[in-house]
């Protein structure tokens, strides 16, 4: 599947009666790379979960490749090409590494699996391990590999670098970059390693209490020390 454009219009969502996403609108063209930043608890995860259909949506539209998927269940969205790597990784604990990779696939393409192992050799070594017996970083790799295998046209990555060794981070970011540049995927990324995120993205939005508080290019954000401090925390960029 070629990359698909994403358009979000006036999206609100939340848990029970509480709203944590309020009237968010943005659009990204096919093959774009968007970084979503914000401090803890600002609604980044909730935004992604809403796009993936795991959090209750109150109102708004989500158009993937022109089709409104806002009312579809998660499975349909996934089949329409939406891939989601959740922050909590959500590896299936009682399945082996290999079975974890197979869940989303219709048949059992050996080469696709090999490709994933090529990306993360560590996973190949541990292919018979149960999900619950993986180290934190291995779980992170598995979760990412599992989503990429399905060849989505839109990939949501919620803190994919958390817990990964610096070498692997570099390799992974390079791989994501390659996926986007070949036009295979549109990528949305939440990341706490802000520098990595800015290096990767071609546009940025910053969330504050469930709303978009800033929007622009990575360069503009890097240059705007005041905004960075206000929205992303003290300390500033190194």
């Amino acid at each position: 599947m070629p990359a698909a454009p994403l358009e979000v219009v006036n999206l609100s969502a939340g848990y029970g009666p509480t709203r944590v996403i309020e009237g968010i609108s943005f659009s990204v063209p096919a093959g774009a790379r968007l970084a979503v930043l914000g401090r803890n608890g600002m609604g980044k995860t909730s935004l992604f979960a809403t796009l993936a259909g795991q959090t209750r949506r109150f109102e708004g539209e989500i158009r993937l490749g022109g089709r409104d998927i806002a009312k579809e269940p998660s499975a349909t969205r996934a089949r329409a090409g939406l891939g989601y790597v959740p922050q909590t990784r959500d590896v299936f604990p009682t399945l082996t590494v290999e079975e974890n990779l197979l869940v989303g696939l219709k048949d059992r393409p050996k080469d696709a699996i090999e490709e994933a192992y090529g990306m993360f050799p560590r996973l190949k070594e541990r292919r018979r391990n149960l999900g619950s017996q993986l180290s934190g970083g291995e779980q992170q790799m598995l979760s990412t590999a599992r989503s990429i295998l399905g060849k989505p046209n839109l990939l949501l990555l919620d803190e994919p670098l958390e817990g990964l060794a610096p070498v692997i981070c570099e390799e992974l970011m390079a791989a994501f970059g390659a996926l986007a540049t070949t036009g295979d995927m549109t990528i949305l990324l939440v990341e706490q390693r802000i520098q990595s995120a800015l290096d990767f993205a071609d546009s940025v939005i910053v969330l504050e209490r469930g709303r978009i508080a800033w929007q622009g290019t990575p360069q503009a954000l890097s240059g705007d020390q005041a905004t960075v401090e206000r929205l992303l925390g003290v300390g500033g960029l190194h």
Partner: protein
Amino acid sequence: MQTVLSIAVDALAYGMVLFIISIGLSVTMGLMRVINLAHGAFAMIGGYFASYAARDLGLGYGVGVLAAIVGTVIIAIPVERFLYRRIYGQPELTQVLMTIGITFCVIGIANFAFGPTLKTIPLPQMLQGSVDLGFRTIATHRLFSIVCGLVVAGALWFLIERTAFGTRLRATVDNAAMAASLGVRTQVVYAVSFAVAIGLAALGGVLGAELLPVEPYYALRYMVTFLVVVSVGGAGSIPGALIACLLLGAIDTTGRYFAPEYGEFFFYLAVIVIVTLFPRGLAGRFR
């Protein structure tokens, strides 16, 4: 020696009957993570169907078995759609409440519709009578249950461990939201598994009816036995359930032979010992 052999035969026969009735429960409890106390109720419904088809309509045993499985699954579809779907992933105690409620209703309705008397399922000529093993005789239908049990165990193991459907089912149970996000239609997966489990319940109800006759209270009477067998084996594990049934069958049978008045004691003491040694069920060792 004869005694030992004799006990072994009895234990095997009893264990396999237990297995064939409880294996469906192992699927719901272990794989779907639903404490389905209404399992016996579905087995009983199967029994009623078979009894009606084979005895009252005189259609024969084979048709009876088929009618039981198909009929029970058809009844189970709306029950799954409107009741079970609400309790997947809920806390265990909520599931207990719901499934006990269902059991009560089924008992009440069965009592009303069929009356409180025992219902039998006439065996075909082939399965009647006994086979002489040389040192003793054994009922033919028990041999039949042993064979059926082994076939079911094999087929089920293959379905769960070796097919894509099995992988999806286990993934869905581990984390339904994430499975859905990978494109798995979780509701379909659940519905199909439930149908399989219920079909097995019905089959077990029919095959086991010679030992556990069908009557309205069937649904509650054997609930504890099923529950114990499944958990001792390790819910969701086919080999585990098989071993548990054979082991508990052996303990029970031996206890009954040598000290029937303390039969219960032996059985439950054994359960305590096994569970303490294998808190995750016997299959904890094998998986």
